[in-house]
């Protein structure tokens, strides 16, 4: 692969953006493994991208933005002259719209007066959450968390001090599938001599009972991550929905 062509076609950017097909990607890799200029370019680019991810993730956490879960492809807007548009507009005629509006108002009123206050009360009321200590990196486990279906819980992840400036915690379900990944800024650590502890609040979700694994990775600013340890705990579901 010609170096001039690589620069002209912005191959490094295409590579980092995942735009190259398999053959072009392989060809470019063979080039930059032997071309010091491109190797530096790719390394700097990859380092920038990886570090940006971490910083933008921190910003997103502050702003309450989360990585989106996969969703169905959005439907394309239909052309304005589609036949069903006229039918849809007909729904705004008073004979149809007034009862619908009344029903909607009733729903909104119920939510505002009954549902939301209850949710707010539940959120603002202190309560004891199920929890488990997970000793990351040591053999065994044995900790059990017993929750009601859909309930959240706390995990206290303990790891030996490893010197990494930041970490990422990942929760794998009993099927070995990644449930979530959470960057942990260094400021969130409770540091004791020789040991760090991370309190992690696991949000409520429909979960299966079984052995869950928490994996903690250390992140360098170079974008490299290395597993520093893992620990497991057993999640048990109980059906005592009436106890408070």
């Amino acid at each position: 692969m010609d170096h001039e062509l690589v620069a002209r076609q912005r191959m490094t950017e295409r590579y980092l953006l995942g735009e190259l097909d398999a053959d072009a990607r392989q060809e470019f890799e063979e080039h930059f493994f032997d071309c010091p200029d491109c190797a530096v370019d790719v390394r700097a680019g990859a380092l920038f991208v990886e570090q940006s991810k971490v910083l933008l993730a921190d910003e997103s956490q502050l702003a309450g933005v989360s990585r989106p879960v996969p969703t169905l492809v959005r439907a394309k807007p239909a052309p304005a002259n589609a036949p069903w548009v006229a039918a849809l507009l007909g729904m705004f005629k008073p004979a149809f719209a007034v009862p619908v509006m009344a029903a909607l108002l009733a729903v909104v009123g119920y939510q505002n007066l009954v549902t939301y206050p209850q949710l707010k009360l539940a959120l603002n009321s202190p309560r004891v959450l199920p929890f488990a200590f997970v000793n990351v990196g040591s053999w065994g486990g044995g900790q059990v968390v017993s929750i009601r279906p859909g309930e959240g819980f706390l995990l206290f992840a303990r790891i030996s001090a490893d010197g990494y400036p930041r970490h990422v915690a990942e929760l794998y379900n009993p099927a070995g599938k990644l449930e979530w990944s959470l960057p942990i800024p260094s400021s969130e650590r409770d540091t004791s001599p020789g040991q760090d502890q991370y309190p992690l609040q696991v949000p409520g979700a429909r979960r299966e009972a079984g052995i869950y694994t928490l994996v903690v990775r250390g992140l360098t600013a170079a974008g490299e991550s290395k597993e520093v340890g893992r620990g497991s705990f057993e999640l048990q579901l109980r059906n005592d929905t009436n106890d408070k």
Partner: protein
Amino acid sequence: MQFQSFDQSYLDRLRAGDFRAQEHFGAYFGALIQIKLRSRLKSPEAIEDVRQETLARFFVALRDGRILQPERLGSFVISICNHVLLEHYRVGSRLDSLDDDQQRDFPAKGTDLLSLLAAKETEKKVREILDQLSERDRRVLREVFFEERDKDEVCRNFGVDRDYLRVLLHRAKQSFKSLYLKDKDQDRDKNKNLGNDAPELTST
């Protein structure tokens, strides 16, 4: 900018177990291998396995005198990496643990105080570059890299095309690279003053 050449003397130092040469080799090619593997393997453990196996096989080949063109060291490393990757695909899951792992010693990548300081510096530089971007460009990067949204959709939403995305990344990368290399130059000068002559990234 250029890399001080991989030559016979560099190979000799590697073969002789020169710590700085081995450390340099592991860091330089280890990073390139990791970048290559990221788009092919999902699990960090698998990436680490293939990377370590590639480096281990390289050192075996070096010991056995099978590297005949020192100036084509990169080609040699990537061909080993491709073989290891193919074997990994064939096995279908994680490679079995290597029985003779303990006999294959190449420098471990520890996290020492210096690398932590370097990490902080890198973070600071990237933050500076991100801070200089417009709000729109930051959002574009966030949606592409952090939220991993479909790039065509992101471009449509922000009224830009794919080339804009490439140029945006190119400019940010170039800014970062100039800061990155400036530091490397300073490190190299310090090393020279200290009498260390291992190859480093340099700018011309």
